């Protein structure tokens, strides 16, 4: 195999990893937002995310016979998932975390795991009543086609991308666009609005913010609402990307997104995105390592196949924690006395 065939392959793997990374990044944002404000790792976030995926599935299923525009269906699915997941996250905070706000840190962590297990089975029961377990997304026509296919007007762009090895599907592009838009909106919300300012104030010092007239509880609820809505978006994107989801699908991407948040520096919004993208690319590259082993005749590399994808991501995490414990973009907390 020569370079001319290998290069597009590598490009394709990296681009695929970036697309995957976007899904992780948006899930990771949900972890990082909550951590930033409460210093709480919301382990129920993976189920909030699956709830979004289930809502998306239901919307697509109900709207499938409807001849409406595919993008409109997508928008409805996204909004519905944002609302349901956002409210669910607020509810979880109100019922499971707020009563424990002043308890030792381990307590809300355990509650979070409990909530996560409860939600899994609730989702299972809800879908199980209708005789479903593996939910298969019925996407609008064309969503699973190639980006810039022969019928569309942007063939030249599609061909140009294909020559360098980037073979995107339309849904990959949708995923990237939705991801970028939500990131931009989030950035604006947190950085430029009064709400964002208040959230940041509560994150910095809850008591002092309260003295300045900020209702900390309301800001925390708002944080959970935003985090949950992001979970909802990522759930729908996950469903679109992989096609199926079930009540227990949240665990794997949840744990990787959490890793991404830590890798980027937990609490940092750009860090979460960077962490997600890095992990996506690393995973995909490790998944294809054995190809190079075969080409270069190195038996040890040949043994590293797709089953090592996850391990690779966690090795990177361990290295980061050893050499830069605050994560890639995290700032160390210097307490001034």
């Amino acid at each position, binding site marked *: *195999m020569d370079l001319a*065939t290998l290069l597009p*392959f590598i490009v*394709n*793997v990296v681009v*695929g*990893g970036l697309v*995957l990374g976007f899904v992780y990044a948006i899930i990771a944002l949900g972890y990082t937002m909550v951590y930033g404000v409460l210093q709480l790792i919301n382990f129920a976030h993976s189920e909030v995310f699956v709830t979004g995926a289930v809502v998306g599935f239901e919307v697509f299923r109900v709207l499938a016979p409807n001849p409406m525009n595919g993008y409109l269906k997508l928008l409805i699915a996204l909004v519905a998932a944002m609302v349901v997941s956002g409210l669910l996250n607020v509810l979880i905070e109100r019922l499971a975390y707020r009563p424990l706000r002043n308890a030792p840190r381990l307590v809300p962590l355990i509650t979070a795991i409990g909530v996560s297990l409860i939600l899994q089975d609730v989702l299972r029961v809800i879908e199980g009543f209708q005789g479903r377990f*593996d939910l*298969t997304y*019925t996407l609008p026509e064309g969503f*699973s086609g*190639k980006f810039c296919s022969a019928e569309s007007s942007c063939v030249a762009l599609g061909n140009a991308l294909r020559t360098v090895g980037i*073979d995107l*599907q339309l849904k990959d592009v949708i995923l990237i666009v939705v991801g970028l838009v939500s990131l931009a909106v989030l950035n604006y919300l947190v950085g430029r609005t009064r709400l964002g300012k208040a959230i940041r104030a509560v994150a910095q010092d809850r008591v002092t913010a309260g003295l300045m007239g900020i209702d900390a509880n309301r800001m925390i609820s708002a944080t959970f609402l935003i985090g949950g809505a992001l979970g909802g978006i990522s759930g729908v994107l*996950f469903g679109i*990307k*992989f*096609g*199926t*989801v079930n009540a227990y*699908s949240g665990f*794997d*991407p949840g744990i990787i997104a959490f890793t991404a948040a830590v890798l980027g520096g937990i609490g940092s919004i750009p860090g979460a995105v960077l962490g997600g993208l890095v992990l996506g690319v690393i*995973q*995909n*590259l*490790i*998944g*294809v390592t*054995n*190809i190079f082993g*075969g080409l270069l005749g190195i038996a040890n590399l040949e043994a590293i*196949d*797709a*089953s090592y*994808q996850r391990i690779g991501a966690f090795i990177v995490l361990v290295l980061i924690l050893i050499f830069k414990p605050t994560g890639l973009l995290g700032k160390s907390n210097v307490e001034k006395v």
Partner: protein
Amino acid sequence: MKKTALSLSILATLALGSASAQTVVKIATLSPLSGGQSDLGTQIRNGAQLAVNEYKPQFKKLGMDLQLVAYDDQADPATGTAQARKIAADRSILAVVGTLNSGVAIPSSQALAPSHVAMVSPANTANQVTDRGLSNMNRIVARDDAQGPAGANFITQNLKAKKVYILNDKTAYGEGLAKEVEKALKAKGVQVITNEGTEEKSDFSSIIAKIKLQRPDAIYFGGIYNQVGVFIKQLREAGITAPVVGGDGLDSAELATIAGKGANNIYFTTVAAPIEALPAARTFATNFQKTFKDQAQGFGAFGYDAAKVVLQGILNAAKANGNKVPSREQVEQAIRKGNFTGLLSGNVSFNSVGDRKAATLYVMNVDNGKYKLATSIPVKPARQ
């Protein structure tokens, strides 16, 4: 005085009874009749019942009243074993048709072994079922270790593939199957690109990128339908149309649902033949429908065949015994050594451990979400 009279009259009735009525001879079925798998278990019972109805006249000529007793194992090893003990205690039961689950067959046949109650299974595939070499355990379906070579055969002969990409799900089932396929393919000189394990349930992008680069003629996936279904969906979306082959782990209607539009050019090997795959089964299917008001399925036909093996074995043993009711040991030997013809699934004879000497594996094809029989492959156990 009174007591003696009473016991005398009881003795007299008993003696009269046995003189006038025929001797009762029973066979039993052991299969799940309640719970999630009762649908399949009931098929086995009903199939056996049809065979018993058919053989009743022949037994009557020998002065025997043939009956079937159905036992429910609930697809549970403990329940199955308890039922097996009950069967062993009923001396009029000469042999058993069952079970559906290998996990139930293994302890139940163990429980039946000391009393030499022969068992003929219409469904068990685990190697261990016969590998223990019990004298009473037989089966008329192919073994699990026949699936790998059969899949490899199909890939080389029917798909004419020269280059195969093998995947497995890293479980004992999937990894074992994939290893068998790899071995058989290599023996036939087919290029095996890799035998790759993955526990991934949703993201197959890096594997698909590799498949795209290597362009295999066929892909073998040793795994279960829910994982393989997602893989196939993503594979087809990436524009790869190569056939995907698997074992009976893919034998589920869910596979086509999960794979969605990608549910085409998929093949899997299985022991449970669809009724239309058995050439002689048409009259059987009509009889079944008439008697039980229910559609006959593969396990119904295999239950029927297993019962015929059992009944024919009892008749053979009776003949050797001077047309008298044979003992359980005699039946056990007659079944193991017998040569049974005219069954729905062909002729049956067993090797020394009770595996069918020439069994059949069926290759099903999924195309546009529809399941149909692609071909059937004759398989032989390693021991003859």
